[in-house]
């Protein structure tokens, strides 16, 4: 380690002690500090002083208390915020992360594999409205027109995301009954709904599409 050219070895070790105590020191720095602690009688006193500083700084910080209504006020502010613009890919990623709790590096592969296992079961479909199957933050699309979609086993997550984005669609729920997805459509009229449904159904990425809730307007 190198900080100031005129620092002694002890100065350097004392500089690292706070990081030794907070458990974040590693590698060569950790080895040097432990070697110093083991061999220099003055090190024990320095460690004691550092422990005291840690306790003091913790005490000073803990003395500050946020206002009791901080969470309430944040929730109110959050309620005034528009939903963030979300790409279908990140929505799918979040959905799979939440549904299957797959470690991030395996997420894409797992999502693709899960899609390959989709089975349409119309009678058992019964979209649940409970929080655990809703795509997080899908509040805006919860009452939107939707279709039920089973994607082709060969479809990748990226392909599906692109398809949905091109058609102004987004995952609004699922997977249910063997991983079938509820896909919300940005359609104000039945005609728009039919057009978007047809475009999605025509895609080779979609294995099966079932009509769901249509807009009230013709």
């Amino acid at each position: 380690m190198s900080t100031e050219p005129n620092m002694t070895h002890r100065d350097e070790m004392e500089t690292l002690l706070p990081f030794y105590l907070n458990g974040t020191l590693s590698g060569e720095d950790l080895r040097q500090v432990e070697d110093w602690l083991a061999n220099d009688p003055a090190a024990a006193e320095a460690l004691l002083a550092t422990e005291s500083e840690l306790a003091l700084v913790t005490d000073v910080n803990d003395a500050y208390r946020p206002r009791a209504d901080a969470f309430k006020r944040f929730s109110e502010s959050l309620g005034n915020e528009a939903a963030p613009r979300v790409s279908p890919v990140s929505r799918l990623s979040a959905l799979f992360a939440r549904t299957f709790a797959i470690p991030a590096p395996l997420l894409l592969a797992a999502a693709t594999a899960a899609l390959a296992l989709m089975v349409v079961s119309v009678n058992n479909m019964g979209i649940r409205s409970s929080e655990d199957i809703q795509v997080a933050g899908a509040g805006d699309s919860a009452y939107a027109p939707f279709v039920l979609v089973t994607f082709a086993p060969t479809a990748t997550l990226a392909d599906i995301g692109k398809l949905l984005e091109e058609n102004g669609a987004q995952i609004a729920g699922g997977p249910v009954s063997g991983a079938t997805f509820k896909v919300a459509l940005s359609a104000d009229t039945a005609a728009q709904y039919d057009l978007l449904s047809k475009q999605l159904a025509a895609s080779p990425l979609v294995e099966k599409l079932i009509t769901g809730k249509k807009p009230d307007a013709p």
Partner: protein
Amino acid sequence: MSSSSDPQSDNDLIKRVASGDRAAVRLLFMRHHARVYRFVVRQTGSETMADDIANEVFLDVWRQAGKFEFRSEVTTWLLGIARFKVLSARRKRKEDELDDLEAERIVDGADTPDVASMKSDKAAALRTCVNGLGEDHRTVIDLAYYHGRTVTEIAEILNIPVATVKTRMFYARSKLGEALKAAGHDRGWP
């Protein structure tokens, strides 16, 4: 700190926030708000300002979660946003307002009647020494001792080189030692 394999880990919550999950950002708020608030109040000396800025930090998380690249810990990102907002808020203030803020902070660390009456109390005197450090030094001390950050994470949060973090830590501890000595406390206290 929650692990990345935990479905409720900070990283997973950020993914959920990025997909528009308001419940996830509320959970992050409950988890980390107090520490972010303390980080800000220690830099600004103003609890009112800290209140507003900490709130804004989590609204930024709501707006920007999709841009988080998971290269650092979520808590490091939060503190980095907070630091940026503190600096931005200062830039926006007129000079006289900044002077008022500084005055408020200095008064906080001075001998108010309460503090004066507690001078005989060693712990109170020690707290005064910590609060008397300059902001650069106090912030590095807080990030290491209270927030448990690594040297690299502190460099990232403060946007300064790693060597500067170490130098600031060295001088911060030296100044703290001097202040304690001047207050009649040798090292190795309490």
